[in-house]
């Protein structure tokens, strides 16, 4: 029986696959039958992810996406893929009066320019097949103002959301779909940076109507769906996954 939710026979590139949402997405893709290409900077941690994959045909292609040369080399060694999940990213909590240009540059480079440049080259070099699916991890902070003094981070994700919607429009000529996932707070290393204390995070978690922060698998399942043929008619969307925190 054909299962439209399966990723059998698909090759999926996952960036940021060394931890958090990226790692879990890679694992869930492999469980759904995909061959996964793992990328991130840290080879050791990529190997940890690799060891948790199911099935065969997986590949590790390490790259620092802040380095244009490394992006180019990643794209040239990349096999043709059917799907891409862009998970690389960095958080920052900083009141706006301290939001200097160098802080903006640091976050925009990794959250916006790096994933976009990778996507641009993959598309231009036709390394993603027709009818492929691109999933970008943006953030609830890119769709609305949420508490937590994450202005630069939110702005980078808002820009990412916007860029991806333009890509969705243009890439439709190859029937390639482009969607964003916008999570609320997900329990990954990205939120445990120490700027706010664990106690403050626990207080914040209580505000979530479904009673908890997200888990990486909550996001990974949505990515799997958007990558699958079951989502063939979905493009240009910003899917909010947030345990209900944005309910007005």
């Amino acid at each position, binding site marked *: 029986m054909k299962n439209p939710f399966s990723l059998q026979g698909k090759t999926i590139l996952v960036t940021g696959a060394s931890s958090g949402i990226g790692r879990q997405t890679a694992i869930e893709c492999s469980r759904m039958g995909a061959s996964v290409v793992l990328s991130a900077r840290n080879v050791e941690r990529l190997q940890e992810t690799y060891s948790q994959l199911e099935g065969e045909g997986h590949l590790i292609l390490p790259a620092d996406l802040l380095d244009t040369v490394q992006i180019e080399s990643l794209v040239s060694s990349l096999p043709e893929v059917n799907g891409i999940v862009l998970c690389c990213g960095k958080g920052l909590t900083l*009141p706006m009066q301290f939001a200097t240009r160098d802080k903006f540059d640091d976050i925009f480079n990794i959250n916006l320019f790096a994933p976009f440049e990778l996507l641009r080259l993959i598309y231009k070099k036709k390394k993603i097949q027709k009818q492929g699916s691109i999933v970008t991890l943006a953030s609830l902070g890119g769709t609305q103002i949420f508490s937590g003094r994450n202005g630069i981070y939110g702005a980078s994700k808002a820009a990412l959301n916007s860029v991806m919607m333009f890509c969705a429009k243009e890439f439709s000529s190859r029937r390639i779909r482009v969607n964003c996932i916008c999570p609320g707070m997900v329990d990954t290393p990205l939120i445990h940076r120490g700027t706010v204390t664990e106690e403050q995070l626990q207080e914040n978690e209580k505000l979530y109507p479904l009673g908890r922060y997200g888990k990486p698998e909550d996001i990974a399942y949505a990515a799997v769906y958007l990558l699958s043929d079951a989502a063939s008619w979905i493009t240009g969307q910003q899917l909010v996954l947030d345990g209900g925190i944005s309910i007005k």
Partner: protein
Amino acid sequence: MKTIDEFVELFGELFDDIDTSNFTPETNFRDNDEWSSLIALSVIAMVDDEFDVTLVGNDIKNATTIADIYNCIVAKSE
């Protein structure tokens, strides 16, 4: 490195409503009507700007006086 008196002044500038001219190193910085989690984040950001030292939320949480935070900066910049 900036002196503790300069730090006390920079610390006071993070408040908008209360009079901070009487702040000293020994001031308990929570003992006023304005202290908040936003000011705590501003302290972390100001220290990053002025001292190139990264404090975390727990450094603020474990401090009582302004001098406690300054000492933490000194310890972290060694």
